[in-house]
């Protein structure tokens, strides 16, 4: 590594600075989001546009709270994403374990069926699911957002990949010690999989936190809105207050980016363990 660098110091600097410029371009929307969130709508559309953070964040948040009860919206998003992560995490982990560690009749067929969900467009189910939710009287409820995506094919796939790496001997020795199948799963299989579970949890949380079309369809009452739905509804207003909207957008994006940065090692490696093996 260092040998290549010392042999071509010029190329190394060129490559690094080239990528740094590209990264700066990629970062512009983030930077501008942080700046826009701290200015009033008028300032944002000034010429020249503001390039440094202003002092309007508090006012924007207050406007947001007034027009959309945004505190409630953030709590809705947090609650829905947390409960979803727990439940979907359990469903995917159990299924991944079942498929990875047992041989049973119909295993290939069942797994293939679940993986069909990866390629069938989600939109095909929107209308029937909406009708189902209406018949269950679940419209405007949290469970309507959470339930339909609990058996997430990608999550099951990810868990099966991670669990296939578990040494068989570990499970067999647990069995010889008289451990029941479920306890084996909880006490023997799960602990070494902590990084993969962290990746799954982060993925599920982000997925639900950012999901838009399904919550948009089943949540019609603004007291149940999640952040993306609330933001989209604010954007549709005649007098859109962009300062307030950008403050809300920053709340949706910035904490997630920070959580991601903190946990990214697990996330990327966990995702890739699932993604690239053939």
């Amino acid at each position: 590594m260092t040998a290549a660098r010392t042999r071509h110091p010029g190329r190394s600097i060129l490559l690094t600075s080239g990528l740094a410029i590209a990264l700066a371009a990629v970062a512009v929307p983030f930077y501008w989001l942080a700046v826009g969130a701290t200015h009033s709508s008028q300032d944002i559309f000034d010429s020249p546009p503001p390039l440094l953070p202003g002092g309007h964040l508090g006012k924007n948040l207050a406007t947001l709270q007034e027009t959309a009860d945004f505190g409630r919206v953030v709590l809705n998003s947090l609650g829905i994403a947390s409960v979803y992560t727990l439940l979907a995490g359990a469903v995917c982990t159990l299924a991944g374990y079942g498929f990875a560690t047992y041989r049973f009749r119909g295993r290939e067929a069942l797994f293939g069926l679940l993986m069909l969900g990866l390629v069938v467009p989600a939109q095909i189910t929107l209308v029937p699911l909406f009708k189902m939710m209406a018949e269950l009287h679940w419209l405007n409820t949290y469970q309507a957002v959470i339930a339909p995506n609990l058996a997430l094919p990608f999550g099951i796939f990810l868990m099966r990949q991670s669990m296939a790496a578990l040494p068989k001997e570990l499970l067999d020795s647990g069995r010889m010690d008289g451990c029941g199948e479920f306890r084996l799963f909880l006490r023997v299989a799960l602990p070494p999989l902590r990084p993969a579970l962290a990746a799954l949890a982060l993925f599920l949380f982000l997925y639900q936190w950012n999901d838009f079309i399904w919550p948009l369809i089943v949540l019609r009452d603004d007291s149940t809105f999640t952040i993306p739905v609330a933001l989209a509804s604010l954007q549709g207003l005649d007098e859109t207050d962009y300062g307030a909207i950008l403050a809300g957008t920053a709340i949706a994006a910035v904490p997630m980016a920070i959580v991601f940065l903190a946990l990214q090692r697990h996330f990327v490696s966990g995702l890739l363990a699932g993604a690239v093996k053939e």
Partner: protein
Amino acid sequence: MTPSTPAAAVSRPAAPRRSARRRGRWGTAAPYLFVLPAVLLFAGFKLYPIAWSFLLSLHRTVGGTETFVGADNYLRLADDPLFWTALRNTGVILVVQVPLMLALATGLAVALDSTLLRGRPVFRLGFFLPMVTGLVAYGIVFSVLLNEEYGLVNWLLGLVGIDPVPWLTEGLWARISLGLALTWHYTGYNAVILLARLQTIPRELYDAAAVDGAGALGAFRHVTLPGLRPALLLTTVLSTIGTLQLFDEPYVLTGGGPDNATLTIGVYLYQNAFKYFDFGYASAVAYALTVLVGVLGMIQFRLLGEKS
């Protein structure tokens, strides 16, 4: 857990039977119980709606009542100019944006893999970060950045003497804007998938190529690209599926406009279902979309997957 007796530990042939007996507590049901929640949920919230959707596509919804109309909705699709517009728009993204983005992602992955690059973890992370941003959030940011009169982008262009660009208000530019937003969001993600694959290519292959007198380009063509094949297939298929279903970005960024220039199949489906409440027709659109995803997916597997 009872400690195993020395006798059990030594008599190895007995072990399989013992473990089978232990499993007997649940019988052979154990594996099924593990996958049961997923299978039930999937059957109820995916398979059943998929079947129902097909049934709906054979009906017309008028004022909440449904009448069987057979293939009428599908025939209507065939001469619905808006459907063809949506299909064409989606197709343009597929043949222009997706290859450009994947080429960019490949270049980025190779750069991120290079031993010449300093601070690799920072770069890898930075380019992946847009993926974490929700579609609505980045759609809103882009719509403000690209505002024709007041947006930052046109202001910057003005500094170097370029006239304001009608990013979101003129058909071609609206498509370009959508492509830019998609590229911003997904390039890093694809690069990370490709990068993981790159790291599995044995270094000896590069050394061998160097011994054979291959330059940097030769090594890329004969070692890197073939090695990347499975990951390229994966990213191509994922991008295709994603593009065909494209909804959030055009919905937030342009609303499908101006003049339907960015109307995608996903947006058209949504409009039919939840704006006009024409569930039957929307379901026909959804089935047409599914057939398209299936056919394109299969073609791509044939073309890219034949050697692996």
